[in-house]
């Protein structure tokens, strides 16, 4: 049994090698079969493990071989599966598999189809390595691996230089994060003289709460998480990462890469528990990110960009949960988010597919009748992410809000507002894309078609999951009524060190529920009114006047809505996007190489190519050497 778990990552790896080596010699069908079966079989194994956990298994671990043996540090390339890992495995392999299936349809006609599938497999492999490692070094290997893969996949269409740059940007940003992670690792090693989870956490439990070393470690690790999970200030690579093919975006955003940071924090929850300060930092960064990304999402007109910013925002939610200590809740949101975000991206993909590569929602509209399946499934996704009661998103978000309320009401207000914004921009996206009348070219209109079943099937599966997925973690009042417990929390509880309880008065829960329903209803009504009834189309970047046209036939309420909510939000959104996002962050990122270049040109001044100078400098060096020793 313990050995079987090593199959989970190795199968996709085998798939990668097979496809990667044979590359174009394989028939396309074969490629699809190999890549899919490998992931599917690791999903089956993971599911089997999952069942055994439900039956009450504790944890499996296996060591393939001793890996590192240096300075009293003994680490093996060893895997470990506990409850936390089991959940992640299901998400990665499950959603990953669906995305693989989808990719068959989506990438079929790309000349580099085999390369793409092999990369996908590799990506899955590294992600599995990341979550299955039983020590930080293995995790780091996977960590770097997904970074590399994302770079390869974002820059997949390497003919386009912008894509390459986007890929490089992603990589550089991740490296900045990895730097923190690496330092954190070294600090852990120096403190606990081990990097193995078990040993580290056991040793950590003897430390006092708020121990400065632990705080330093957790903060450094969090820097890594910020890079990988696209939080402020290292998040801009994620929207740029839209350059890659849509399935990749789905994979990066839903199943694999960005959840790595969240996973890492949950994995190290023992350490974070010990350092309340780091917790505060995590929560704060998460909150700011969630709010800012949501506001930016309001103004994006690229279907994928909107989803990208919503991902950033949702990740912010997760980190808020982790920050306030609701680790299981955070993980819960990871799972539900994986469902509906994958769904949304794949739907977007099928829309783009139908529109012949068009991504601007201002050119879409009224796709409802052309893409019935996509429409329905997309709607499910929207409902789920906006937290409509009884849809999966509702449960996880509800929990997060509850947790924040317990932690600090102020934070609760911000997060509640943010989740409202989520609903706003998601509905805006939905209406603009699927309702109203078609705004694209005739040429596009003629070619509109529903995607093949190989693409729609995964959509349906994901749609169902996004609808019912939430019931594994029902809020207290509901579970009491039905006599079912919070299955999810109970399942994950073993890996959490002294889990906190976030039980609220039922009245609060209900009021929250009612509030949600009312607010969402309002959002639904206004957005619908605006984008469908009044056919408001976001103004072209060039023309500014059209905004007044919008105001022309408005009800009184609409004007209030405009004045009070929409205009300020637009302003903020604009500001964040224009100033913060573009100038500052990108400035910093592009600045780093510039600085290095300058230093380099300074350094090479010495390299005059004149032998005489070299000899002189050499002797000066010797003199300095002697002087240095004499002075000491």
């Amino acid at each position, binding site marked *: 049994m313990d050995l079987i778990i090593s199959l989970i990552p190795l199968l996709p790896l085998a798939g990668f090698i097979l496809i990667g080596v044979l590359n174009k010699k394989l028939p396309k069908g074969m490629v699809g079969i190999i890549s899919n079966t490998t992931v599917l079989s690791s999903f089956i194994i993971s599911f089997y493990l999952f069942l055994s956990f439900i039956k009450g298994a504790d944890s499996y671990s296996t060591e393939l071989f001793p890996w590192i043996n240096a300075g009293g540090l003994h680490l093996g390339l060893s895997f470990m599966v506990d409850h936390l890992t089991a959940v992640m495995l299901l998400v990665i392999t499950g959603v990953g598999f669906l995305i693989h299936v989808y990719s068959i349809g989506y990438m079929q006609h790309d000349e580099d189809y085999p390369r793409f599938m092999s990369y996908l497999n590799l990506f899955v492999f590294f992600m599995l390595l990341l979550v299955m490692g039983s020590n930080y070094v293995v995790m780091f290997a996977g960590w770097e691996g997904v970074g590399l893969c994302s770079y390869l996949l974002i820059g997949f269409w390497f003919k386009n230089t912008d894509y390459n740059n986007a890929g490089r940007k992603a990589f550089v940003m991740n490296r900045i994060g990895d730097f923190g992670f690496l330092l954190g690792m070294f600090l852990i090693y120096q403190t606990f003289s081990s990097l193995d989870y078990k040993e580290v956490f056991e040793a950590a439990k003897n430390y006092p709460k708020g121990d400065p070393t632990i705080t330093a470690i957790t903060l450094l690790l969090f820097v890594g998480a910020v890079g990988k999970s696209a939080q402020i200030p290292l998040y801009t690579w994620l929207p740029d990462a839209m350059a890659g093919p849509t399935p990749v975006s789905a994979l990066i955003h839903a199943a694999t890469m960005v959840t790595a940071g969240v996973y890492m924090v949950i994995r190290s929850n023992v350490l974070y528990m010990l350092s309340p300060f780091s917790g505060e930092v995590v929560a704060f960064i998460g909150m700011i990110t969630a709010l800012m990304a949501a506001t930016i999402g309001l103004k994006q007109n690229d279907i994928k960009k909107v989803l990208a910013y919503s991902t950033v925002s949702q990740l912010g939610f997760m980190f808020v949960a982790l920050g306030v200590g609701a680790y299981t809740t955070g993980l819960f949101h990871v799972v539900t988010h994986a469902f509906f975000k994958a769904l949304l991206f794949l739907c977007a993909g099928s829309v783009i597919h139908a529109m012949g590569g068009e991504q601007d929602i201002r050119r879409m509209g009224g796709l409802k009748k052309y893409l019935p399946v996509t429409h329905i499934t997309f709607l499910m996704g929207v409902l789920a992410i906006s937290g409509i009661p009884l849809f999966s998103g509702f449960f996880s978000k509800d929990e997060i809000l509850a947790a924040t309320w317990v932690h600090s009401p102020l934070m609760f207000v911000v997060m509640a507002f943010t989740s409202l914004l989520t609903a706003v921009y998601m509905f805006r996206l939905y209406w603009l894309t699927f309702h109203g009348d078609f705004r694209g070219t005739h040429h596009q209109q003629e070619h509109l078609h529903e995607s093949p079943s190989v693409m729609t099937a995964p959509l349906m599966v994901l749609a169902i999951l996004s609808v019912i997925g939430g019931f594994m973690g029902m809020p207290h009042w509901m579970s009491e009524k039905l006599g079912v417990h919070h299955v999810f929390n109970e399942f994950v509880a073993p890996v959490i060190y002294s889990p906190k309880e976030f039980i609220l008065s039922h009245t609060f829960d209900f009021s929250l529920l009612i509030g949600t329903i009312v607010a969402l209803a309002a959002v639904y009504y206004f957005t619908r009114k605006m984008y469908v009834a009044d056919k408001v189309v976001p103004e072209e970047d060039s023309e500014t006047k059209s905004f007044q046209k919008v105001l022309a036939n408005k009800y009184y309420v609409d004007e209030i809505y405009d004045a009070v909510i929409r205009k300020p939000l637009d302003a903020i959104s604009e500001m964040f996007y224009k100033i913060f996002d573009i100038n500052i962050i990108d400035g910093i990122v592009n600045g780093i190489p510039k600085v290095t270049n300058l230093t380099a040109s300074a350094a*090479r001044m010495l*390299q*005059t*190519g*004149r*032998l*005489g100078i070299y*000899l*002189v400098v050499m*002797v000066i060096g010797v003199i300095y050497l002697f002087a240095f020793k004499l002075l000491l």
Partner: protein
Amino acid sequence: MAAINIDHYLLLSAVLFCIGVAGVLFRRNAIVIFMCIELMLNSVNLLLTSFSNQHNDPSGQIFVFFIMAVAAAEVAVGLAILVMIYRNAKSVDIDFFNKLKE
């Protein structure tokens, strides 16, 4: 007259060595530089012989033989390189050669 002990030899060879170094630094003609390097080596030879005399231990002088042999080999190679360069560049001024830089 004062006793001449090992320190004098040490000083002498050190001075010789420094003269060699100075020559290497301040001359531009490759052949002259080369001679200065030989001077450095010879100062080392002097030092070794005096030390071996001090220690009553012949190995120092044997080492000198090795240095001489190696120096001869270096001379051969060095002159060969210089001839090759003179053929191509018609110059043995070391500052003439600064094509490789940055």
